[in-house]
């Protein structure tokens, strides 16, 4: 079997095993073993990929092709380039840490969690548009139940809003995919094949916006981002982690690979519309985070801002900015997951997420508080942590455009760095330092061992990405080659 298919088979096997097992210890064993296997797989894949890359000039490696629906040219085609390998690694890390952050959850929760994982991994390995779309939708539906059943607050409303908005996005996407297939005259839905075809300009003018919008909804593109704050705020911890950490990246990845990768001409012509929207996302998201008082809402809006930056960078259509976009996806994925893990931890103990009701937690739970500070610093772009590398690359890339339009937008987007500092420092100062607000908080315990695993694991990767970005950015930049060539 192809190593890539294993990424789908492992969560599937976990799901099937959960059907039979009932005891808590068994469930935890399955989840930990499966998630570790996924991380190991990702590591092996990365090593093999670097090895293969050196000798093979192909765009995608480990390609395997299985004819599925012959008469419609639907294949199950998998393959990876450097970017997908990194995305798979990110997903594996977050699925792994997510398991530890949802330690006390029941069996059914983990079943949906596995289904979500199948969707996410399947999406990143697919290069056939049909398969890709299929996995994309597989990833969306478990969210409804995960949030609706195990969430908090206005969970039913949020779950419904999130599901419907994302499905509406996928409606745009499906029309776009059918358009791509039928207008290009290709004989398969594989992206490698489609990239060689030319889609008539007339059709590109509607397919590009449709696909970009379709994926953009998941990437929290303004004004279609409203599902994200509500969804994240209501979701249980690990689901927030997975959703902000990985699922929103599906949006960015899809925009980049499908919308821009297959329709480069339209991307050049129409990028300005979406650049304005993403510019708004970046600044508006950050500003909204400043006025929020709920910890999860602060992070959700911060995600809108950061994911907006991903789309913003992709639309700059040059190598440096796109490299930055992928770095930003990784960095944001890791640090948001860390944020949500910690917020879940704090909320589980204080039973409030309102920052006005908390204070002085540094004395009470030093481990969690230090981790929170690290996450905050990564988020506001401190050098040696991942955020700095990513944002730096993005803005350098964006500044390579010399015309006024791009310059102005870049300057506006850069403001978000300052605003980010405002809301991060405000939150950290309010909840971690100062006097303890509620005397009940004095007796709270610090992070348990499984929560520590989750936090430490994420911090290691954030620091590694921040200190040794060269290998990663080289890998990305190499993989961008074919797309850049098409864009020129």
């Amino acid at each position, binding site marked *: 079997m192809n190593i890539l298919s294993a990424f789908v088979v492992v969560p599937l096997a976990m799901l099937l095993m959960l059907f039979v097992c009932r005891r808590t210890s068994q469930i935890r064993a399955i989840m930990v073993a499966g998630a570790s296997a996924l991380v190991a797989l990702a590591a092996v894949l990365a090593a093999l990929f670097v090895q293969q890359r050196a000798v093979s000039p192909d765009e995608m490696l480990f390609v395997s092709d299985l004819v599925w629906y012959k*008469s419609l040219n639907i294949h199950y085609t998998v393959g990876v380039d450097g970017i997908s390998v990194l995305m798979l690694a990110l997903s594996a890390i977050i699925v792994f840490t997510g398991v530890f952050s949802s330690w006390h959850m029941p069996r059914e929760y983990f079943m949906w969690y596995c289904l979500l994982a199948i969707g996410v991994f399947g999406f990143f390995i697919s290069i056939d548009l049909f398969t890709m779309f*299929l996995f994309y*939708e*597989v990833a969306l539906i478990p969210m*409804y139940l995960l949030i*609706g059943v195990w969430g908090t607050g206005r969970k*039913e409303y949020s779950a419904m809003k999130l599901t419907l908005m994302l499905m509406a996005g996928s409606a745009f996407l*499906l029309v776009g995919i*059918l*358009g791509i297939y039928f207008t290009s005259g290709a004989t398969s839905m594989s992206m490698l094949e489609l990239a060689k075809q030319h889609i008539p300009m007339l059709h590109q003018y509607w397919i590009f916006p449709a696909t970009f919008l379709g994926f953009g909804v998941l990437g929290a593109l303004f004004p279609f981002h409203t599902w994200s704050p509500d969804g994240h705020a209501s979701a249980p911890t690990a689901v927030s982690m997975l959703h902000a950490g990985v699922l929103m990246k599906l949006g960015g990845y899809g925009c980049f690979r499908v919308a821009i990768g297959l329709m480069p001409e339209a991307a050049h012509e129409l990028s300005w519309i979406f650049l304005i929207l993403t510019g708004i996302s970046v600044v508006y998201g950050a500003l909204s985070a400043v006025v929020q008082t709920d910890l999860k809402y602060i992070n959700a809006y911060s995600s809108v801002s950061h994911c907006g930056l991903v789309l913003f960078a992709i639309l700059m259509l040059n190598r440096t900015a796109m490299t930055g976009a992928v770095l930003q996806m990784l960095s944001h994925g890791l640090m948001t997951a860390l944020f949500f893990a910690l917020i879940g931890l704090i909320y589980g103990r204080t039973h409030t997420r309102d920052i006005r009701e908390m204070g002085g937690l540094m004395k009470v739970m030093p481990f969690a508080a230090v981790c929170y500070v690290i996450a905050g610093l990564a988020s506001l772009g401190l050098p040696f942590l991942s955020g700095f590398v990513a944002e730096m690359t993005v803005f350098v890339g964006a500044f390579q455009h010399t015309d006024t339009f791009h310059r102005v937008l870049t300057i506006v987007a850069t403001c978000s760095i300052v605003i980010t500092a405002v809301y991060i420092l405000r939150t950290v100062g309010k909840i971690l330092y100062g006097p303890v607000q509620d005397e009940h908080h004095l007796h709270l315990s610090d992070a348990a061992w499984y929560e520590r695993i989750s936090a430490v694991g994420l911090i290691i990767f954030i620091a590694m990405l921040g200190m040794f970005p060269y290998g990663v950015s080289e890998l990305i930049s190499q993989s961008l080659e074919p797309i850049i060539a098409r864009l020129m």
Partner: protein
Amino acid sequence: MSFFSDFLLLRQEISLMAVFLVLFMYDILSSGRGKAYFHLVACALFGLHTALGFLPAESGSAFGGMYVTSPLTALMKNILSIGTFVVLMQASRWLRVSGKQGEFYVIILSTLLGMNFMVSAGSFMLLYIGIEMASLPMACLAAFDKYKEKSAEAGVKYILLAALSSGIMLFGLSFLYGATGSMYFANMQSLIDAAPIAVLGFVLFFVGLAFKISVVPFHLWTADVYEGAPTSVTAYLSVVSKGAAVFALVFTLWQVFGAISEVWHHLLWGLSLVTIVLGNLFAIGQKDIKRFFAFSSISQAGFILLGVMGGTEQGMTATVYFVLVYLFSNLAAFGVISAVENESGRTDIAAYNGLFRSNPKLTFVMTLAVFSLAGIPPFAGFFSKFFIFAAAAEQGEYLLVFLALINTVISLFYYLLVIRAMFINPAEESAVGKIRSGGYIRLSLALCTAGILLVGLLSGIYEYVGGISFGI
């Protein structure tokens, strides 16, 4: 010799007839103790008939072109038989309680026989006879619980509107006969043109079939009849009866009205959209689960028209495949509805609150069914919807596909309301307890679950349908 070989072409109808007669005699001749085995014998015989239908079929026509058969018609009849088989199994407990098994089988099998003739008709005469044969006993079925006011009302509503619609259809057929001088599909094909008289005839004929498929604006009977009729009959109406009418529509459109596809293309464009939208909008507010599925089935009918619209080979494949998948999904849902109704006598959606905690297995089946109907992967419904959309997109109907897709989002909203009731809403005081469903229902649900899970993932079924379909 040719006389016998003509009859051999009819083997599906003949075996159905044999089952029908055996059960009829059994019901009349058996006494109290013998009746205990009636259901088992009926299901076994009918299962045998269904299995026999899968023997390789040959193409041919009998009785001077009146009756036509091909691997495709055999497949369609098999689909109808599978649906009926599942319905029979789901009806077991309700029938045992009501104690009128014999009539039910005799009536339901005679409607099925009519539907088989609808599918195999090579002439409007046989088609019309088939339709009448399917709809008159259907009214008896709808009124089967005749002491319940709603059931009796459903029967009356159905028979009145069915009579009206078949009157309109006959009127249309007379125009068509006037225009072409023939009732045989093979002859009419070349004679039909866009002359007003033929178009008028076509429109009236279409209205008659649209009534059966419950296409808006001919859907008004649907919700009331679905709600009033016994649940198993509702299931039968929503799947088998609708499926047969769709098949008949596809055959006549392709074989007879191919030359005026311009005319019906526009007609179906509008009707499919209106059907999907109205079905969806009305489904949202429903409190009764049978009414809810009535409107959901109307909106599904709109999707079917989307596949029919193009008149291509791909469209026919997608339509037949869609009906097959719809059959499994809808019958799975109705199986759960029967189980809950048998236990508690309730059909309101509130009865499903907290079902997950009391009956996880039934909830699992219902979840699969609802997700499949909503078109969520990896369930079969996703594939069937995708193929329908692909068939329409192949014709360049991107706008329509997009509008239909937006409607799938609306439909997801109300399907999720059912999911929400089962998983999220807290159970009431009077909630349904642990249901011990009988072996028959379990078997039927297992069959449907397998269908929902496998039909999409195994591409062979679609390829087989594709291999025997044809375009205009």
